[in-house]
């Protein structure tokens, strides 16, 4: 019996060695992020106050705030979601449920996956030529929203397809066997059962978009802005205004970038505080994604 015990002990040693290597690899990522985040929090947390959120940027670091930046980021995100979600989900459903399985579909699929890896600055240049000049949308929230929508479209499409693919074929056959059309099957089964995965993909795409700087700078977002876009709700009929879509704007990462390039040390604290808020916004979005997935999947089993 002795040799078998030796053999097992030696093999278990390899188990332990791999576990340690894996843990070390994991820690490289986790500790780096934690160190960066804590460092930023220490630098910036002293600047966080109500005024920081309600003040416009200023020449005086003590009075400068992120009002125009977070309002800009929020409006750009809304615009992005408005365009990216219906386009991405519809494209994903088409590819998974309707598209004929032939080489044209294969080529489109491969290209969509590749698009997710195109550097964001390339999207910025495309948007500058197409949206800003060709379509004459200018350096507006609409241009920025369209640009970021384009940027996260592949993420939304891929997430939609993954979510749809996880639905067992037996569910589709069950629906078709009752005489359902393709659209009825999509409407009553495919969409509801994949909504958790789709929402997660959308939010992860949005979390990526909110941190994007390069394409937004390329299309000409302002780095210093001391006014807000026109309010979407007005006192006169029709009470809704979309003028804000054409307004100039700034976003959180640009505000940070602007402050980090200032020589005064006090502005660095502002940048750290803005970064802290931005990371919290991203984490909140990811948290929302996890919660939604949990909520929506609770009643779905197969």
């Amino acid at each position, binding site marked *: 019996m002795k040799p078998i015990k030796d053999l097992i002990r030696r093999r278990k040693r390899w188990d332990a060695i791999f576990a340690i290597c894996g843990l070390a690899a994991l820690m490289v990522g986790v500790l780096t992020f934690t160190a960066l985040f804590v460092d930023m929090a220490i630098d910036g947390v002293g600047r966080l106050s109500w005024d920081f959120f309600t003040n416009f940027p200023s020449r005086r670091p003590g009075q400068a705030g992120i009002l125009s930046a977070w309002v800009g980021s929020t409006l750009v995100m809304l615009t992005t979601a408005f365009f990216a979600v219906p386009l991405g989900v519809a494209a994903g459903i088409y590819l998974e449920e309707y598209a004929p399985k032939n080489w044209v579909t294969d080529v489109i699929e491969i290209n969509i996956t590749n698009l997710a890896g195109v550097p964001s600055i390339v999207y910025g240049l495309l948007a500058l030529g197409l949206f800003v000049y060709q379509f004459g949308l200018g350096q507006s929230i609409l241009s920025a929203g369209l640009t970021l929508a384009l940027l996260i479209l592949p993420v939304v499409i891929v997430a939609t397809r993954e979510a749809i693919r996880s639905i067992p074929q037996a569910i*589709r056959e069950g629906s078709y*066997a*009752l*005489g359902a059309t393709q659209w009825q099957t999509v409407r009553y089964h495919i969409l509801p059962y994949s909504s958790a995965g789709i929402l997660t993909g959308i939010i992860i795409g949005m979390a990526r978009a909110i941190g994007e700087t390069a394409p937004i700078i390329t299309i000409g977002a302002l780095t210093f802005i001391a006014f807000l876009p026109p309010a979407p709700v007005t006192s006169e009929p029709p009470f809704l205004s979309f003028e804000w879509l054409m307004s100039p704007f700034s976003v959180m990462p640009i505000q940070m970038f602007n402050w980090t390039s200032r020589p005064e040390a006090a502005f660095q604290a502002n940048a750290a505080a803005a970064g802290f808020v931005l990371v919290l916004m991203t984490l909140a979005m990811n948290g929302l994604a996890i919660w939604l997935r949990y909520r929506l999947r609770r009643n779905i089993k197969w």
Partner: protein
Amino acid sequence: MSAPETHMSEVLITKAEARRLSFYYGDFRALKSISMPVHERKVTALIGPSGCGKSTFLRCFNRMHDLYPGNRYDGEIVLQPDNTNLLAPGVDPIEVRMRIGMVFQKPNPFPKTIFENVAYGLRVRGESSRRRIEEKVEQALQDAALWDEVKDRLQQPAYNLSGGQQQRLCIARALATDPELLLFDEPTSALDPIATASIEELMHDLKERVTILIVTHNMQQAARVSDFTAYMYLGDLIEFGVTDELFIKPKMKQTEDYITGRFG
């Protein structure tokens, strides 16, 4: 092939009939010119070893093969009383599936409530009256011998039911739209013996009102539930006849070898 009618005192009505039906998965010919009737309000069983084409044959009746590319039918399946060839190019598979229901091998309830599972076929047909849907759902659940077990929890997820209850729910789902013909694809192969017995009993009651065509891998089951049996092997129909005769006095040597367990 014999004429089973001569042995029965009652008159048999043909509900559906396959005529020289061949089926191809791409280039592979999975069914070879099958001709056989399905009699109204009778249970017809399809038996044979794995890969003999019995499920493929069953899935021709509701055009399930149309869902996947590269499949081709040749020949006819004629549905009575209107003498419609289900495989004709002008016939929409959706129309076929509205007349012919199906129950699958593994229970596949939708991840919705018990009520919505049964109501789905009605909703697909555009039924919007809440009252009519409720009536139909109750009727279908009673016909599937499930009503007493679920009447107090219609709004609960169907996945809380046991495997046998789920399969009866799938039967209720198919019954809710009054199908003329009900296809069963090995409906008890994922169930325990007690659940199997309840499904078999249910089939016995159902044939008063609906024609049943069942694929089974279990010869005892075919002997227990069916009035007619077809033995298939490698895409060919070897023998079709009255179940009792086919099991006691098969005409073909191959059938005898299979049912006596010498092969398969």
